C-alpha cells in the first residue's frame, strides 16, 4: 500500500513492547529485560558447557563402548548435575517471583478517577464509546482512542462478532475480546504521543489490517477533543458539500454509517461524525487524506479484500447508471468534499 508512504505514518516504534509509554508497559518491559538477561546467560552457559564437554571428553579412536562407566566418575558428575539442577530450580523460582511481582504491580494500577471507555471489536474495526453518566454526553468514534496523559484509562472490552484482542504494546499487554464476556483493561499513558495498536487474535480476512491508534495528549487538549466529539457534525457549508451530504444520505453510505445531526444512523459501520478529524482511515491502515478516502470509497475490496465496506468500482466506472449505480464521478467528488470537512 504505497499510499502509506507518508512519513507522518512511520510507526516503527509506535507499536513496540520495547518502547513503553506508560507504567504498565514499563513494568512488563523491565521484567522482559530481567528474563532476557537470565535467559541469555543460561543459553550461553549451556552451549559453553556442551563445547566443554565435547572437547574435554576422553576422545579416543577406540570405539569400544563403555557400558559400565566408572562409579566414581559417575558420582562426581552426578554431583555436578545435581547442583546444576538445584541452581536451575532456584533461578526458576526467582523468575516466578519476578513474574508474580510484575502481575501484582499491574493489578494494583487502578484509579478511582479512571476514564471509562467502551471498546467494541467488530470485523474488522474498533468502535470506541466514551462513557458519561449523562447518556447524551457520551461520545462515539472509531479506530482512534484519545486519552489524557497521566490519567488512568479503564477500558471495557466487548466483541460484536468473533474473538478479537486489543493490543497497544507501548501502553500495556493485550486483552482478548470474547463474545459473551466482558473484559476490562487499565492503562495510563505517561507521555504524549501517537501509538498504534492492532488486533492480535486471528479474526478472519482482515485481521492483518485491524489496527487502531491511541493518541495520548495533555488533559486540556483531550478535554477539548472530547467536547468536540460530543457535538453533532458540521453542517454543509457550500453547494458541493450539500450535494455530498445528499449523496451520503441517499445512497448506501447511510445504511451503515452514522453522521450525528443527520438522519444517517447506521450502526454496523464506524461513526463518521468527525471523520476528518481522524488521522487514519480503514482501521489505522490508510493515512486520512482526500486521495486515500476516494480510493477507499471506490475500491475498498482491493485495499482490504473481504472487508465489509461495499465496493463502488463498477458504479463509478459506469457513471452511476443502472440499478447498481450508486455513485458517479460528480457524486464522489461532492461526497469527498463533504466527508473531508467533517472535522
Amino acid at each position, binding site marked *: 500500500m504505497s499510499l502509506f508512504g507518508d512519513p507522518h505514518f512511520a510507526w516503527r516504534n509506535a507499536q513496540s513492547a520495547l518502547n513503553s509509554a506508560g507504567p504498565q508497559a514499563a513494568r512488563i518491559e523491565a521484567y522482559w529485560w530481567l528474563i532476557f538477561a537470565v535467559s541469555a546467560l543460561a543459553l550461553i552457559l549451556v552451549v559453553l558447557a556442551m563445547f566443554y564437554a565435547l572437547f574435554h571428553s576422553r576422545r579416543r579412536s577406540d570405539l569400544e563402548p563403555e557400558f559400565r562407566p566408572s562409579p566414581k566418575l559417575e558420582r562426581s558428575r552426578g554431583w555436578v548435575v545435581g547442583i546444576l539442577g538445584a541452581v536451575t530450580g532456584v533461578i526458576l523460582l526467582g523468575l516466578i517471583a519476578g513474574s508474580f511481582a510484575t502481575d501484582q504491580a499491574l493489578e494494583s494500577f487502578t484509579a478511582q478517577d479512571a476514564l471509562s471507555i467502551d471498546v467494541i471489536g467488530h470485523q474488522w474495526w474498533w468502535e470506541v464509546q466514551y462513557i458519561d453518566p449523562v447518556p447524551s454526553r457520551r461520545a462515539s468514534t472509531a479506530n482512534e482512542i484519545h486519552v489524557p496523559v497521566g490519567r488512568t484509562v479503564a477500558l471495557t472490552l466487548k466483541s460484536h462478532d468473533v474473538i478479537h484482542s486489543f493490543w497497544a504494546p507501548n501502553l500495556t499487554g493485550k486483552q482478548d475480546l470474547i463474545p459473551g464476556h466482558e473484559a476490562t483493561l487499565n492503562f495510563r499513558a505517561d507521555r504524549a504521543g501517537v501509538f498504534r495498536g492492532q488486533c492480535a487474535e486471528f479474526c478472519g*480476512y482482515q485481521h492483518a489490517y485491524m489496527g487502531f491508534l491511541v493518541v495520548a495528549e495533555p488533559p486540556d487538549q483531550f478535554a477539548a477533543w472530547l467536547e468536540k466529539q460530543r457535538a453533532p457534525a458540521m453542517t454543509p457549508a457550500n453547494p458541493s458539500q450539500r450535494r455530498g451530504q445528499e449523496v451520503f444520505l*441517499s*445512497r*448506501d453510505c447511510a*445504511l*451503515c454509517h452514522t453522521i450525528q445531526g443527520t438522519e444517517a444512523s447506521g450502526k*454496523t459501520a464506524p461513526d463518521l461524525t468527525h471523520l476528518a478529524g481522524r488521522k487514519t482511515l480503514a482501521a489505522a491502515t490508510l493515512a486520512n487524506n482526500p486521495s486515500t478516502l476516494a480510493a477507499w470509497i471506490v475500491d475498498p*475490496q*482491493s485495499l482490504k*479484500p*473481504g472487508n*465489509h465496506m*461495499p*465496493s*463502488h*468500482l*463498477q*458504479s463509478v466506472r*459506469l457513471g452511476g447508471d*443502472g*440499478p*447498481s*449505480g*450508486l455513485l458517479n464521478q460528480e457524486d464522489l467528488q461532492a461526497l469527498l468534499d463533504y466527508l473531508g470537512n467533517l472535522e
Partner: protein
Amino acid sequence: MKILRGVWIAMLGAAALTGCEREERNFVEPPPTSSAVESLRLSDLRPGPSSPPPAAENSAYQENAYAISEGQRLFSWYNCAGCHFHGGGGIGPPLMDDLWIYGSEPQNIHATIIQGRPNGMPAFGGRIPDYQVWQLAAYVRSLSGLTPKDAVPARSDHMSNESPPTTMEKPSPKMTGSPP
C-alpha cells in the same frame, strides 16, 4: 497404490465439479448483470406458443457458500430481518415457505429488492450495490431450500433455532372458556 491413486483422482474430479465454485470467495465486485431483469416473467400463464424458460444467471452467487453467508449478514444489516425475520415473516411475507408472490428465480428476487413491491416492500435500488443484491437473493433462496444444502450455513448463532423451549407446560387440549 496405483488403484488408490486412481480412486483419489476420480474423487477429486467428481468433487471438483461441485466443490470449487461452492467455496470460492470473491471479494472483487463482478460486473452488474441487471439486464436479465427485464426479460423475467412473474407468471406461469403465457399466451401464445410456448417459449423456453429463462436460464438462471449468477449461479456463481446462487451456489456459493460465501455469497450466501454474506447474504445472511446483509439480510440482518440491511434490516431485511426486521420485516421477514428469520424467514418466517411478520411485517413482510414469509420467505422460507414455497409461496413466491413475485417469483423465486434469483432475478425475480433481485428485481423485488431493487424495485420494491407495492404492498410495503421498500425499493433498495440505488441504495445497495448490485452484487450485494445478488448475495441477498442467494440467501433468500437458501431459506426455502432452493440452493444446494452444502453451500448453506447451518444456522446463525442468534436464536434461529426453531426448537420451542420446554419451560412451560404444554397447552392443555381442553379449554372450556368457563370460569374455574
